[in-house]
């Protein structure tokens, strides 16, 4: 038996023993996933047991080095772990922005001390992070951000505002882009900084969306003092002062990669496929076909696109593991996933007809078709709009000329 075969056998046995039945429904949603953080309360005993078992093994962050709380798995091993986990439809034991976004950026740009402090806490689910990128005047044009960060000797002084900070109201720390030099060209005066959300001067206000609910918040910084360092070598700033754009770009690739690996047509409102949902809702004609030929054709086309998309995620992962990094191609996945997600929920609403357009006595019900459909409008905006992704593909993948 090769080492990898051995690893697969061990992983399979470990999962069988340690992943509780209740965690094997395969349908991970924002509501049922384990986010971690100071305010986190496990939703069930099974969720807690699964988290603790994974943590003991380093499997909350399997590819991170052991000294930072991971299991130090190779790409091949990590793929096997994923495959075996998917085989039994096991949820991830822990998912959050610390794992998917900050972690990879710290691994690439952080000091050893920064990694020790922050990566360990992320791996153990102790700290939940949110992202302070967008500002009211700096959305798609992210680099025009204006949140001001001044050097006050032993500390940084921060004033300004962020927007669309997902889950800022329940997060413990924020990784943030701030402007440290207003005179430099706009990409050159930005710094990437980490701060505790409990710091004096930070306030948060949730944003209500057309869907009636949302994880988004506005975050305000009013004379916030951030220490230069949280201990020896453990600076608040990641990378160099005024060179935060490099860190930000690296992180955006991970964000797009993450957003791009959403499963567009599944999971959003239940595990069933679109065609099955339509068959239940609409019924069949006398030839046994869905009693709405135009909808039937649209659903089938969307399912083919969805299938090809999921294979592309798999292929790009395989290529990355073989040494061909995803780079700007993550924009292709982000673009395709967000458009397909919108298409899928639009089709669900069309199948549901007027029934799906009704709301309850307390407004749009959380988790309803309509709620999801409305919320999904945001996918082609957040994390860089569809238009921004197309610009990135044009310039960085296709090398088309600039105006």
């Amino acid at each position, binding site marked *: 038996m090769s080492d990898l075969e051995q690893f697969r056998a061990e992983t399979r046995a470990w999962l069988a023993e340690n992943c509780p039945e209740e965690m094997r429904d395969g349908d991970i949603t924002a509501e049922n996933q384990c986010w971690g953080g100071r305010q986190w309360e496990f939703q069930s005993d099974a969720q807690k047991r699964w988290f603790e078992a994974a943590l003991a093994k380093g499997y909350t962050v399997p590819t991170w080095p052991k000294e930072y709380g991971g299991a130090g798995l190779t790409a091949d091993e990590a793929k096997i772990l994923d495959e075996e986990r998917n085989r039994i439809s096991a949820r991830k034991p822990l998912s959050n922005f610390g794992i998917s976004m900050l972690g990879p950026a710290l691994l690439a740009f952080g000091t050893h001390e920064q990694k020790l402090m922050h990566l360990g806490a992320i791996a153990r689910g102790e700290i939940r992070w949110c992202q302070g990128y967008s500002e009211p005047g700096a959305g798609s044009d992210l680099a025009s951000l204006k949140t001001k960060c001044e050097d006050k000797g032993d500390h940084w002084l921060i004033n300004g505002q962020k927007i669309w900070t997902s889950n800022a109201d329940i997060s413990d720390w924020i990784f943030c882009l701030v402007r440290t030099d207003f005179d430099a060209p706009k990409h050159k005066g930005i710094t990437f900084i980490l701060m505790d959300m409990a710091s004096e001067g930070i306030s948060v206000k949730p944003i209500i969306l057309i869907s009636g609910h949302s994880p988004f918040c506005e975050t305000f910084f009013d004379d916030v003092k951030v220490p230069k360092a949280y201990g020896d070598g453990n600076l608040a700033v990641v990378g160099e002062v005024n060179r935060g754009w490099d860190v930000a770009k690296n992180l955006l690739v991970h964000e797009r990669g993450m957003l791009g690996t959403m499963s567009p047509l599944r999971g959003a409102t239940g595990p069933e*496929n679109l*065609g*099955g949902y*339509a*068959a239940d809702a609409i019924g*069949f004609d006398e030839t046994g*076909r*869905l009693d709405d030929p135009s909808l*039937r*054709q649209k*659903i*089938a*086309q969307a*399912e*083919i*696109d969805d*299938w*090809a*998309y999921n*294979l*592309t995620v*798999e*292929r790009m992962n*395989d*290529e990355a*593991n*073989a040494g061909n990094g995803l780079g700007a*191609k993550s924009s*292709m996945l982000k*673009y*395709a996933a967000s458009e397909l997600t919108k298409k899928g929920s639009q089709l669900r609403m069309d199948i549901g007809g007027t029934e799906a357009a009704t709301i309850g006595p307390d407004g749009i019900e959380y988790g309803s078709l309509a709620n999801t459909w409305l919320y999904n409008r945001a996918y082609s905006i957040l994390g860089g709009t569809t*238009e921004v*992704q*197309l*610009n990135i*593909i*044009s*310039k960085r*993948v*296709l*090398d*088309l*000329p*600039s*105006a």
Partner: protein
Amino acid sequence: MSLILTEEQEMLQDAANGFLTENAPVAAFREIRDSKNPDGFSRDLWKEMAAMGWAGIIVNEEYGGSEFGYVGAGVLAEQMGRNLTASPFFSTSVLGATAVQRYGTAKQKEQHLGAICDGSTLFALAVDEGPRHRPEHIEFTATPHGNGYKLSGAKTFVADGHVADKLIIAARTSGEARDPSGITLFLVDADAAAIERTHTPMIDSRNAANITVDDLEVTGDDILGEVDGGYEALEGILSAGRAVLGAEMSGSSQQAFDITTDYLKEREQFGQKIGSFQGLQHRAAHLATEIEMTKSAVLKSLQLLDDDFESASATCSMAKAKSGMTAQLSTQEAIQMHGGIGVTDEYDVGLYFKRVHVAQQMFGDAGFHADRLAKRSGY
């Protein structure tokens, strides 16, 4: 299995790319077209391809093949799609070889596979009986006669039927016109007196034939696969054909796209490179994304044919749908983004547009396969 090519497959890809760019570029295809070459391809080139092991790409080594499997066949087809190479590869090395190797008797394999590998025998598959692909819809009859059958009927659009030495004919031995059961495959000599072949040149300048058969007497030895159970074999042959056509269209999509992006980087209008216009950039970026999706779909279907042939049908069907949609979009956009020059005969993109249209129609377009997916999924 990883969704990437192995080192061996990559070497085959490089070799095919090198050989075809040099020996069968679009210019060679134009020459075949403009000289009204009655075969529609170069027999010398086909001999060379056979000598390199391409004609027997999916055939097992014991019969003289190179045993590269369907991924190997797809790798070649993709490069042929890039160069618009005309050859009997698809009809003989994919359809013919799949039919004989998977469904033939020991005697049939012995008799035909070697001849496929050395390029000496050309095959064609006769399925459709009307303008649209409907493989269950077979009226062509095989009536019991003595120890064998008499075949009669008509077939349309038999790709390479005009040059084939052997024909595989799907005929009805029982049941009604639209039944999948009751179909039997026959492997017959194409130059039999009872067979009349009418050469029907296609818009892509490849060649096909309409075929009428009038009381052709055949024996049990001419049956390929099971009597009345031929649909399963037909489905297997068509699956292989769909995946490989998908690979060919994927290559054509990529090539038409590459020609177009090169043009976008060179051509100036309004004092700027037209590739700097966002209206064109966004469409190009969308197309690049669709091409990536298509490559994944095609590779998956080819891998599945090698890995678990019987279960590959649905996947091949979806890959054909996806690659057809993308190829149509890619070649339409190629013409549009080129402007006027795109619709001239001297410019290549129009040739891709025409070939892709025929490949899209062959063995079912995207709508046909979407319908199959819906049926299979129960809606």
